């Protein structure tokens, strides 16, 4: 089977679920992306990034100056200014490069499949009533009907309208276990490019040509139609304003420099300043060092990498805007089943009544559940085995047993065993139904059952009563099985973290309020919505949004679609219906509802990375003043030499060191931009202090050290010192 993995084949080890990790930067990637980075020097594309565009103009200008009046200093500055721009482009190219690799493997999945289109097909029609033709998959239109059989590739996105099949969806999910797709219900959606492994299904195509799920995935990971997110736009405006101020400062410095030089006519000319003012190269160096190049260079890479981190977790976001909104979410709506609790209720306890031995109850309960293939039934068998060492017997060993299946009418299931001529009937089910059965069969309801049932109900559990009748004796109740919703491990801690981040969690469940309350308490969510119908969900979202909150939710069914569309972040499960996938703004290919929490963390991490690097970039300026200002003016105003606290070797080496540092810091921060800053959920003030200390204070200190170190090296270059 030629299936390519979209996601990294080894799933990210969730060593610490509370931390958002990220992909590592492969040094080879830098090299591979260099041609792309050079291509991005084209001013027609670069002007979109005003900060780097200014640097490029500066670099071009110094090139002219260096050609006109060559010197080691001039060429050094020129080369490093160009490198600054290339490094910035490199950051973006590397970020995009990862998406491109993923897109390539997706394209491989999108083979030139052929489709068997049916004309005149209708449900239940005989095979000779319609015709079949083979066409290219790309020719399929919406509402075409196709048939797919075992071994064939599904030609396009659609809904199964007849049949049931196991489908290998590893091409898009990376998960090799096949999934079942069947007509009707919530598991009817199939994705083009996936392969039917068994059986035969008839599919109605729902996509428009060229807009299949895989097509959209390719566009997304490639960032083909990447638009700037609202925060990115706002930050760009701020950076542009800062750039304008520094641009003006650099330009208007010239008349003041000329005035100062005239006043101190005796001061010697230096490469930095002479009678006609500050040299162009030094002025441009000053400008480039002061404008926020670090964040300007990394801003788009941060955004692309944020999307990429989601893709690595098998989540596809329709837009960067959705990722950003995820970071802003105030309220999380979480479905109880599958998200907060394990998929199903599990037996946790056997409570015998009327002096029945606990082991006898367990035995009876196990017998009655042998044929019960529901997860609840299996959990009873398992509990009896683990608690009382009772071995589950296989069906085949009990030829004399008759299983009574559960029906909605009787609300019981059980087994009839023929042993030594008499028949033993065991029944298990809802309390009222089983007690009625006991009464109907001559038994006397015991007073023990009622309190046990009530106790279980009040803690949010589900009671199942077990009763038996041997031969013609009156029926009697044996005891109660406690079925319990099992809250996933670690959920309480996660919800605590959410609370720290200021996010309210609301559990959505179809259970009655009593049960819901108990589970909500155990899981530690802030609120719950019991007996929830889809329209209640929608109403809740509207209510939250009315108060200005952003709401995130997951869903998979068609009836979730309105709520998914209304929510600010709607994550639909890949196993869900096409309607749900259309309505949401993210798709989780793993169909893991818990992932919503990770998505929120990635969104936050994206914003924090931007803020931290902006702070770092601006804090960097302080050291550069100390490097460049004395270098420029110490010749004219000797007392300004006191500002040269780094004791840099010469004006030329000081300016060159600042420019080199400015360029190298971009490269040094690319991994951070791609990975995102470390994020651990904690209160806002803690986060702020930590990031201010790390990126604010660190941003002040780092360039002092860096510039000094570079200066120590380059002062030996002839012509600099």
């Amino acid at each position, binding site marked *: 089977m030629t299936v390519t993995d979209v996601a990294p084949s080894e799933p990210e080890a969730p060593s610490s679920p509370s931390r958002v990790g990220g992909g590592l930067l492969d040094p080879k990637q830098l090299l591979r992306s260099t041609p792309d980075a050079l291509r991005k020097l084209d001013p027609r594309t670069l002007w979109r990034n005003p900060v780097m565009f200014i640097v490029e103009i500066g670099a071009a200008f110094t090139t002219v100056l260096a050609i006109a009046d060559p010197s080691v200093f001039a060429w050094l500055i020129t080369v490093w200014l160009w490198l600054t721009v290339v490094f910035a482009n490199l950051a973006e190219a590397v970020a995009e490069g990862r998406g491109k690799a993923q897109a390539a493997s997706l394209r491989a999945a999108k083979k030139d499949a052929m489709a068997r289109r049916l004309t005149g097909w209708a449900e239940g029609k005989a095979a000779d009533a319609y015709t079949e033709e083979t066409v290219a998959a790309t020719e399929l239109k919406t509402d075409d009907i196709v048939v797919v059989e075992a071994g064939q590739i599904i030609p396009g996105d659609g809904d199964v309208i007849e049949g049931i099949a196991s489908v290998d969806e590893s091409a898009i999910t990376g998960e090799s276990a096949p999934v079942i797709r069947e007509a009707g219900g919530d598991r009817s959606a199939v994705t083009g490019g996936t392969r039917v492994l068994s059986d035969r299904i008839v599919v109605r195509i729902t996509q428009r040509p060229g807009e299949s799920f895989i097509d959209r995935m390719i566009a997304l990971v490639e960032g083909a139609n990447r638009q700037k997110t*609202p*925060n990115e*736009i*706002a*930050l760009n*405006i*701020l950076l*542009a*304003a800062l750039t*304008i*101020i520094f641009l*003006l*400062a650099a*330009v*208007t*410095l*010239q*008349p*003041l420099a*000329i*005035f*100062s030089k005239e*006043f*101190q006519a005796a001061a010697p000319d230096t490469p930095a300043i002479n009678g006609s003012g500050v040299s162009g190269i030094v002025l441009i160096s000053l400008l480039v060092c002061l404008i926020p190049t670090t964040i300007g260079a990394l801003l788009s890479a941060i955004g692309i990498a944020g999307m990429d981190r989601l893709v690595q977790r098998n989540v596809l976001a329709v837009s960067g805007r959705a990722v*950003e909104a995820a*970071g*802003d979410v*105030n309220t999380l709506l979480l479905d109880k089943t599958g998200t907060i609790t394990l998929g199903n209720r599990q037996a946790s306890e056997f409570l015998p009544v009327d002096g029945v031995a606990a082991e006898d109850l367990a035995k009876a309960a196990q017998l009655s559940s042998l044929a019960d293939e529901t997860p609840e039934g299996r959990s009873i068998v398992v509990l009896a085995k683990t608690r009382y060492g009772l071995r589950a017997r296989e069906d085949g060993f009990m030829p004399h047993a008759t299983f009574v299946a559960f029906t909605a009418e009787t609300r019981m299931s059980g087994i009839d065993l023929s042993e030594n001529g008499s028949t033993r009937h065991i029944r298990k089910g809802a309390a009222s139904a089983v007690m009625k059965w006991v009464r109907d069969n001559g038994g006397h309801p015991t007073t023990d059952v009622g309190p046990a049932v009530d106790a279980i109900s009040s803690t949010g559990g589900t009671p199942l009563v077990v009763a038996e009748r041997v031969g013609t004796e009156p029926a009697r109740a044996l005891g109660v099985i406690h079925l319990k919703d099992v809250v996933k491990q670690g959920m309480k801690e996660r919800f605590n973290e959410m*609370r*720290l*981040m*200021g*996010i309210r969690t609301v559990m959505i469940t179809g259970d009655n309020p009593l049960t819901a309350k108990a589970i909500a308490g155990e899981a530690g969510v802030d609120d719950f919505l019991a007996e929830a119908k889809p329209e209640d969900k929608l109403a809740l979202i509207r209510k939250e949004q009315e*108060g*200005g*909150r952003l709401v995130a939710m997951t869903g998979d069914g068609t009836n979730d679609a309105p709520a998914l569309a209304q929510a600010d972040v709607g994550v639909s499960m890949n196993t869900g219906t096409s309607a749900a996938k259309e309505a949401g703004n993210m798709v989780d290919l793993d169909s893991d509802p818990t992932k919503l929490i990770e998505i929120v963390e990635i*969104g*936050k*991490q994206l*914003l*924090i990375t*931007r*803020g*931290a690097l*902006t*702070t770092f970039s*601006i*804090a960097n300026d302080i050291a550069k003043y100390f490097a460049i200002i004395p270098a420029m003016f110490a010749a004219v*105003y000797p007392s300004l030499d006191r500002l040269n606290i780094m004791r840099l070797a010469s004006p030329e080496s000081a300016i060159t060191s600042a420019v080199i540092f400015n360029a190298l810091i971009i490269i040094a921060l690319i991994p951070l931009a791609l990975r995102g800053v470390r*994020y651990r959920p904690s*209160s*806002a*003030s803690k*986060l*702020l*202090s930590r*990031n*201010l200390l790390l*990126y*604010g204070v660190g941003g002040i200190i780092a360039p002092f050290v860096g510039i000094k170190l570079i200066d120590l090296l380059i002062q030996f270059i002839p012509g600099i010192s």
Partner: protein
Amino acid sequence: MSTTAAGVIFILVLVAALVAVYRPFGDYMYRVVSAKTHSRFERGIYRLVGVNPDGEQRWGVYARSVLAFSAVSILFLYLVLRVNWALFGPAQDFPGVTDHIAWNTAVSFVTNTNWQAYSGESTMTYLSQMAGLAVQNFVSAAVGIAVVVALVRGFARRRTSELGTSAQLASRTLGNFWVDLTRITVRVLLPIAVLGTIVLIIGGAIQNFTDYHTFTTVAGGEQTITGGPMASQEVIKELGTNGGGFANVNSAHPFENPTTWTNLIEIFLLLCIPFSLPRVFGRMVGDNRQGYAVVAIMGILAIASISLTNAFELAGNGTVPQAVGAAMEGKEVRFGLSNSATFTAATTLTSTGAVNSFHDSYTALGGMMPIVNMMLGEVAPGGVGSGLYGLLVLAVITVFVAGLMVGRTPEYIGKKIGSREIKFASLYFLTTPVLVLVGTATAFATGNNSTALNVGPHGLSEVLYAFTSASNNNGSAFAGITVNTPWWDTALGLCMLLGRFLPLIFVLGLAGALARQKPVPASEARCPRTGRCLSAWSSA
């Protein structure tokens, strides 16, 4: 008592007085700007001007009202100055003010700058002073307060419902400029001015319409002693952070500011509204802690600046101060070093620009402080209204970056800081640096710096100071530079005009952008509005 101890006590008394009035005065101003009813006198004014006092304005209309009012003000003041009619008072026969000085002065007073390219007592008649300049001292201050109130309404107002067009319409509005202007003038500025005048007269400031007296001094020279309604002019000059002195030497004149006590009162007057406005802000947004946070930042910056200015002057670096024992050049003996330094810091921390000593004669570092104060954007506490709106714009920028650092779309007092808000905030803080830099560079490039008294770095500072003062609407002069040439009057006039009204439009635009938002619920993860958060950024 040592000079230092006296200076410290002076500052402590000042701080205590400002702390004492913060709540009552702030609460009073809050009631004024949010009152529902109009007094009979005010209704009369509204009828006269022809405005509906209950009509609300969106930001564009509010801004147009401000601009229209100011344009008419400039025109009116220009005419008053050109005529310079001496209706009453002394028979001083002053000619009409020359065109470029009249233009410069009209702009200067309407923009609350009060840069003076003329010498008051030898240029202006009493009528021009009172009916021309003093009127603008009142209303230009009221305009500043009105605009900040409109901005705070942008923060405070919530678009409550999608339904009901009237509710939606109302919440996009920022109040009514004409009502704000009238109320602030009538209910806040006028009563305090009347009270303050009486206090200053008691303190020894003069208030009369007498003729100028010419004496022959003991040494045989001739000296003219001016008269005039100085106390009443002086009060609103400080209260409205205007700074345009009656006399050329401003608050260094013994008739304007006779004693240490009047000096203290004048500094208190120029600080009291800017320092109490944060209370209004806190009350309006329904969270007094927001007001305390803002006033704390203002206070910390102000105390730091006042202390440094004092320290630099008391240290008296420089050849001459060292030789004579103190940096007393350009300072009044009756105030001394410290009380002059405190006045200087206060006048440049606000947008007042009144002086009781000559900044040009300060020690090198002491002279740097007023420039630093003004370049900080005059936000600690800044001019009446303009200081608070400057600080709130700064807060918007700060909260934006800090908010990103805690992983949320930044929000401030329940309003999201998006690209629209950042656009207006960025334009706001772009304006002044552009004006200062372009102005200073142009002066040097065109050789107009030659009117500076000094050459070399000192001359550079004089030119830079002039543009910084004008663009920030401060109006204080470093002195030592001749600015009554047509070039300087025009250039500085333009700086004052653009430096006042561009930021003002951007502030109102920001207010409009904020007002139309739905509120964001208060959440734990909101950027904690602590001083640490803000001061870390405001310095950046």
